C-alpha cells in the first residue's frame, strides 16, 4: 500500500463514515450495545495511542525522557484547563528544551 493510497483511503473512508451518520435511520442508536460500544471505542483507541506514542519506538519499548517530560507537561497544562493548542505547544517546548540541554 502506498502512502498516497493510505491518505486517500483515510480521507474518503472518514467522509463516508460522517455521511452515513446523516443518512442512516437514527433508530440504530437505540440499541444499547451499539451505543455503548460507540461511546467506549474512542476512549480505548485514544488512550492506546497516547501509550504507544509515548513509550514505543517501532516494536520496542523505550524511555525517552524529553518525550515523556513533554507529555507530563501536557498533563499539567490540561489540569490547568489550557486550550488545545497551548497543550501541544507546552509539550513541544518542554521536550525541545530538555533536548537542547543535552537530556535524551
Amino acid at each position, binding site marked *: 500500500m502506498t502512502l498516497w493510497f493510505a491518505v486517500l483511503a483515510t480521507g474518503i473512508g472518514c*467522509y463516508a463514515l460522517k455521511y452515513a451518520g446523516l443518512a442512516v435511520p437514527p433508530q440504530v442508536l437505540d440499541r444499547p450495545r451499539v451505543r455503548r460500544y460507540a461511546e467506549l471505542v474512542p476512549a480505548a483507541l485514544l488512550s492506546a495511542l497516547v501509550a504507544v506514542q509515548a513509550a514505543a519506538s517501532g516494536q520496542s519499548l523505550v524511555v525517552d525522557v524529553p518525550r515523556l517530560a513533554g507529555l507530563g507537561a501536557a498533563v499539567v497544562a490540561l489540569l490547568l484547563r489550557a486550550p488545545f493548542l497551548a497543550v501541544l505547544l*507546552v509539550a513541544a517546548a518542554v521536550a525541545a528544551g530538555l533536548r537542547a540541554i543535552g537530556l535524551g
Partner: protein
Amino acid sequence: MRDGLGVGIAVGLSGLAFGAAAIAAGLNIAQASALSLLTFSGASQFALVGAVGAGGNLAVGVAGALLLGGRNTLYGLRLADLLRVRGARSVVVAQGVIDETTAVATAQPDREAARAGFVATFASIYVTWNLATLVGALGAARLGDPATFGLDAVVPAAFLALLWPRLRANASDRWIAVLAAGVAIAATPFLPSGVPVLLAAAVALGGALR
C-alpha cells in the same frame, strides 16, 4: 455564532501541529494537505500519521483512523435530527460532522441557533485547519530534525488532549482508557506496529458486551 467562530479559530490553529507532525512522520506537503482537506478529523489524521511515523503497516494505520472516525457517524445521527438537512446540502454538511461542530450545535437553545452555530464552527475550523496544516507542513519541511523541536511529544499530547474530556466525564471511560493503554504497551514488543492499538479497541468491545 460567536462561540462557533472562537472555537473554530482556536482549534483550527492546531493544524499547525498536525502539519508539522505529518512532515516529521514522512508525509510530503501535498499528502499532509490532502489528508486535512479530505479527512478533516484531527484524531483520525494523527492516528494515520502516528502509524506512518512508527513505520507500521499502512493498512493497520488506516484501520485505526477509520475506527476513530466512526464516532463521527454517531454525531451524524444526532445532528441529522437537529439540523434537518436533505439532498445535495447533506453532501457538504457531512464533511463538517466532527467533535467541535457537534459540541457547539447541540449546546444551542433552538434549531435555528444550532444551524448557525454548526455553520460558523464548520466554516471557521475548515478554513483555519487547512491553512494551518499547510503552514505547519511548509515550516517543518524547512526545519530539519523534528525531535529537536519536540515534535515527537506533540502527537501523544494531541491524543491525550482529545481523550481528556472523556476522562473527566465518566468513570467507565477512565477504566477502559487505563486497560487499553496497558494492553497496547504489553502487546507492543510482540505485534507489528499499529496492531496493539487495534487490540485496545477490541478491549472496548469486550467492555461493551459485558
